[in-house]
């Protein structure tokens, strides 16, 4: 048996869209197999078919361990031996860790849940994973990274033969990534196949044995990782060559337009941080997950209470009680969590574009659908948003396109200072490049940009200056001439004694 | 912080509202306790301490009961406390227990549930309290320590109403019936009364099933509007005045359709006067309560009753005599 899993001639049609057209995938036991492709390439759809969430169109077949495989729901898929770690975690926040691990397949004794056995087993699994949390801890009290590892533990504990990992490292720190890779290697030795979906090239080349590439719902090809290099892979994914990954536009840097001084958050997650940005400048904020970067910008933006701090926009001191106060002054914030704080997923692209600057879409004082359509059309074109029309429900778009809608909604308000929190998280190479180009355009127009990112190469490629945070304080600042991976890492892991 | 203050404030406003709501049931009580205070000096000189526990106090009929009971108490020098069980049998049981421990000599009550209050009544009677049922009876009341029953008779009321309808129709015609909530004991008894009469009139035809309009005017109005566009009706017989008023509104004044109710409430009288409804059978709840208080006083004084079931008679009220009853 060469393949543990074979998907042949798989197609999937949604009303109006052919999401998959005759694609294939072959996975060998004991390999880490990367799925690559831009958002909308069909990777997620293919995996949802594998998990029984979608049914494939007639024709085509799936073989698991040589036998026909047609699960009708994720539970069935898991029982057969396919588990998935989703990109968007769905932990039950008010349940303890052990119950989260065993939810849906509780250990039973005499028909009742054997709590003791579950706790014991969880303890063992957690320890194996190198995590230091009690099985009794509520998920609510864990960090995003810890929740992610719990999810991974869950999949491992099902004894699955194929584990799908969708962007598993999106929200965890480098140290945790190393731990995760340790587990992946161990699983590989045990003969478990991992289907690994990620946009991070370094990870793909680090951990994966083979790579399958998809584009626009079609299958492009499969190759051994050792035979491929990054430019080749990018060419397969986007269908053309991308020479510079981080295009850097030249812009004239002017006076200081935005200052936040001595910011202290009421919950003490940010302690006395000061930053400023000039007209035409791109300020990067680096640091590890949990260093307080998002907390800083959300505090500045009035989403959380500050106990101290002064915010000066274009020379004017602004008292920020809610986001409204600072939006009025021409500041925009593209938040990290677009589903929770960025988008109305039930609304259309129009609705979302109109969310901030609806006043620009009025005719005789009334909301004009025509103007809204025109505006969303403009941003759909400008930002290359892939959507059938402005009337599409945003929840049906892919991650990268959703992110572009969030950006479009702010751009309509024509802000002078734009704060972007992890703007490229979970989106593909092509869309990332679109966003870098856009940032370049913005600073050329004389706007100021603050960008938070966990990817150091990205910060180094895009920014004029990088401020690095660690444990809620500013641990240092580097001008572009002094950028280096080592210096940024050192500042990021600086721990105050 | 601000939020907390607001939450507390809201709770405050709410509870103020609730208290005000409670006030409605206690207002009659306080009224009577004023009397009681005045009468309590007399009570020392052989006055009576009596409690009346009503099913609820949310309609004209029940308010009439409270008012008549207070008037009677004043007349007889009774220290009367009126409580409302708010349609809750459990609450009524606790109220009976409370009254026993507070030393009331007699308790008059309208059982929320005819089967659920027998034991509580028996327990109170065992403590030497005179127990009297008013308006409606507990099942097998004589064997639960209850000394007397002062009531109207729903079956008779139904019979009186339907007999008048039959007479007005000349024994022939198409009718429809509006009932209270399906399963309500009083409603079922009135329906029984209707059937007792209809047996004698084969030419009176019910063209639609009786409709459950929940004692509600608006519901009755909607149903009758619909009926009138599909059926020719000669009479609409309603189990209370509220629904009769609704039927009257749907048909319009002097429609030629005979519309009748039961209870004799002010809204019914108003509709009789302006011709929207034909007549009503008065269930004199006030008289039932007053008779009950009188019986209680006699029993406390050690006298015996001629008859321990005191029936308050029903009266037919129509345009002719409505002025006498307002």
């Amino acid at each position: 048996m060469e393949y543990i899993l074979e998907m042949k001639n798989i197609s999937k049609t949604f009303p109006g869209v052919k999401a998959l057209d005759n694609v294939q995938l072959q996975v060998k036991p004991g390999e880490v197999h990367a799925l690559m492709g831009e958002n909308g390439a069909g990777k997620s759809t293919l995996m949802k078919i594998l998990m029984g969430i979608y049914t494939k169109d007639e024709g085509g077949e799936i073989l698991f361990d040589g036998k026909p495989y047609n699960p009708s729901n994720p539970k069935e898929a898991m029982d057969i031996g396919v588990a998935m770690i989703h990109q968007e975690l769905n932990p039950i926040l008010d349940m303890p860790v052990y119950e989260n691990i065993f939810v849906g397949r509780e250990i039973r004794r005499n028909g009742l849940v054997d709590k003791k056995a579950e706790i014991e087993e969880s303890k063992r699994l957690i320890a194996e994973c190198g995590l230091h949390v009690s099985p009794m801890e509520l998920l609510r009290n864990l960090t995003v990274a810890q929740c992610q590892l719990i999810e991974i533990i869950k999949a491992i504990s099902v004894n699955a033969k194929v584990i799908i990992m969708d962007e598993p490292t999106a929200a965890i720190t480098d140290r945790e990534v190393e731990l995760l890779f340790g587990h992946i290697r161990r699983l590989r030795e045990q003969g478990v196949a991992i289907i690994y979906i990620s946009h991070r090239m370094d990870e793909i080349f680090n951990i994966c044995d083979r790579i399958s590439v998809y584009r626009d719902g079609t299958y492009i090809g499969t190759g051994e990782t050792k035979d491929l290099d990054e430019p080749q892979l990018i060419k397969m994914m986007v269908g053309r060559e991308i020479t510079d990954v981080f295009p850097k536009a030249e812009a004239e840097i002017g006076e200081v337009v935005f200052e936040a001084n001595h910011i202290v958050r009421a919950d003490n997650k940010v302690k006395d941080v000061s930053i400023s940005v000039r007209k035409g400048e791109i300020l990067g904020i680096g640091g590890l997950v949990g260093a307080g970067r998002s907390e800083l910008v959300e505090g500045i933006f009035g989403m959380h209470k500050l106990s101290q701090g002064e915010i000066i926009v274009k020379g004017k001191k602004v008292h920020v009680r809610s986001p409204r106060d600072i939006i009025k002054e021409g500041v925009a914030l593209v938040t990290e969590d677009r589903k929770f704080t960025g988008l109305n997923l039930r609304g259309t692209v129009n609705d979302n574009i109109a969310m901030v600057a609806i006043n620009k879409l009025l005719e005789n004082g009334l909301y004009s659908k025509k103007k809204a359509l025109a505006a969303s059309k403009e941003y759909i074109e400008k930002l290359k948003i892939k959507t059938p029309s402005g009337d599409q429900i945003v929840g049906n778009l892919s991650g990268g396109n959703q992110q572009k809608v969030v950006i479009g909604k702010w751009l309509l308000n024509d802000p002078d200072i734009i704060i972007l929190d992890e703007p490229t998280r979970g989106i593909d190479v092509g869309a990332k490049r679109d966003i870098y180009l856009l940032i370049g355009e913005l600073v050329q127009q004389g706007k100021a940009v603050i960008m938070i990112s966990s990817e150091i190469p990205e910060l180094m490629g895009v920014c004029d200056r990088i401020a690095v945070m660690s444990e809620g304080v500013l641990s240092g600042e580097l001008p572009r001439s002094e950028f280096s991976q080592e210096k940024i890492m050192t500042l990021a892991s600086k721990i105050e004694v | 912080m601000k939020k907390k203050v607001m939450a507390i404030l809201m709770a405050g406003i709410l509870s103020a509202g609730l208290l005000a709501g409670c006030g409605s049931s206690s207002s009659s009580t306080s009224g009577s306790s004023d009397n009681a205070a005045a009468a309590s000096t007399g009570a020392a000189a052989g006055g009576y301490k009596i409690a009346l526990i009503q099913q609820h106090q949310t309609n004209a009929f029940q308010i009439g009961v409270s008012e008549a009971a207070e008037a009677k108490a004043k007349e007889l020098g009774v220290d009367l406390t009126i409580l409302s069980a708010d349609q809750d049998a459990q609450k009524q049981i606790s109220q009976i227990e409370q009254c026993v421990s507070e030393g009331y000599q007699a308790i008059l009550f309208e059982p929320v549930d005819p089967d659920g209050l027998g034991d509580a009544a028996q327990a109170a009677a065992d403590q030497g309290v005179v127990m009297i049922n008013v308006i409606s009876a507990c099942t097998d009341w004589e064997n639960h320590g209850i000394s007397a029953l002062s009531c109207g008779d729903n079956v008779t009321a139904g019979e009186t109403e339907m007999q008048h309808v039959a007479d007005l129709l000349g024994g022939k015609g198409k009718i429809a019936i509006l009932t209270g909530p399906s399963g309500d004991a009083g409603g079922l008894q009135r329906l029984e009364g209707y059937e007792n009469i209809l047996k004698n009139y084969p030419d009176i035809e019910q063209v639609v099933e009786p409709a459950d309009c929940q004692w509600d005017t608006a519901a009755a109005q909607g149903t009758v509007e619909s009926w009138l566009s599909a059926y020719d009706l000669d009479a609409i017989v309603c189990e209370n005045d509220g629904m009769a008023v609704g039927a009257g509104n749907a048909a319009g004044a002097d429609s030629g359709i005979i519309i009748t109710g039961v209870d004799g409430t002010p809204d019914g009288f108003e509709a009789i006067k302006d011709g929207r409804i034909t007549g009503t059978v008065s269930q004199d709840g006030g008289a039932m309560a007053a008779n009950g208080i009188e019986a209680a006083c006699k029993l406390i004084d050690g006298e015996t009753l001629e008859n321990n079931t005191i029936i308050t008679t029903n009266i037919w009220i129509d345009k002719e005599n409505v002025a006498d009853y307002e």
Partner: protein
Amino acid sequence: MKQDELKKGKDAKALLSEYFIFVIFIVIVIGLTILKPSFITPKNLVNILKQASINGILAFGMMFVIISGGFDMSVGSTVAFSGILAALLGQGNNPLVLALVAALLAGLGVGIVNGVGVAVGDLPPFIMTLGTMTAVRGLALLVSNGKPVIGMSEQYKAIAASSIAGIPMLAVFLVIVILICSFVLAKTVYGRRVYACGGNLQAARVAGINTTAIRISTFAIAGLLAGLSGFLMTSRVTIGQPTAAESYEMDAITACVVGGVSMTGGVGKPWGVVVGTLLITVIANGLDILGVSSHWQKIVKGLIIVLAVLIDVKGKSKKD
């Protein structure tokens, strides 16, 4: 080319699924007409309009609350309370406008209390409005001393009884409410923000929308319309009853849900609520004129509502 064909197929299907509830409504109307031709007489159509009016007005208030992500249990009590106030002030020779204004203010007041409790006090809408539902019912009983209020002026009674060009006055009020509400939701900045709040409250706040004010205002609108309903209700039944309008909130919620307003907020169209209101009125009216017994009516009404929504939801979910 292929894409275009698919798109066309989708449009027809999407259109059908979007307007499915309307199709169901038409089917029920045709069915009732066949079973009982008198259903479709002008007289009965007027009845249906009258019977739909008060619930329709309440449903439109409820729609604002539900679209913004809330829920209002208190409208039935508010109808009773404002109806009693209107009845007390509509007696004798008082100018009618006094009764109307009092009813509207009473409703508005209850609505604002609800809104403040939910938006500022952070109470779950269900709990907050359950509280006001009980308290306001108490107020209605208190103000009326538990008795029906009679003696309304002829002028007041005439409002609900009159009609313009054969259209009952009540329906005229409903149509005005429908027109204003549809306009506000679709055309004003405020309306779009109501949808944004219900779609994602956090995102709306981050986008600079004053979500507190929006949420308070939706409850205030529901209260105001409940006040109007109370005023009309008293005119229709010619008495003020403290026990009136029991569980009217359920009918209003049903009309919204049947009409495609999502209970999770952010989604809903005014025309859907119009169809929802008409659907439940037509069912009640139709069963009445068919002479179906009350017990069966309850069963049939419940089943039709669940089936209508089920078919609607299933039809839509096929799209994804």
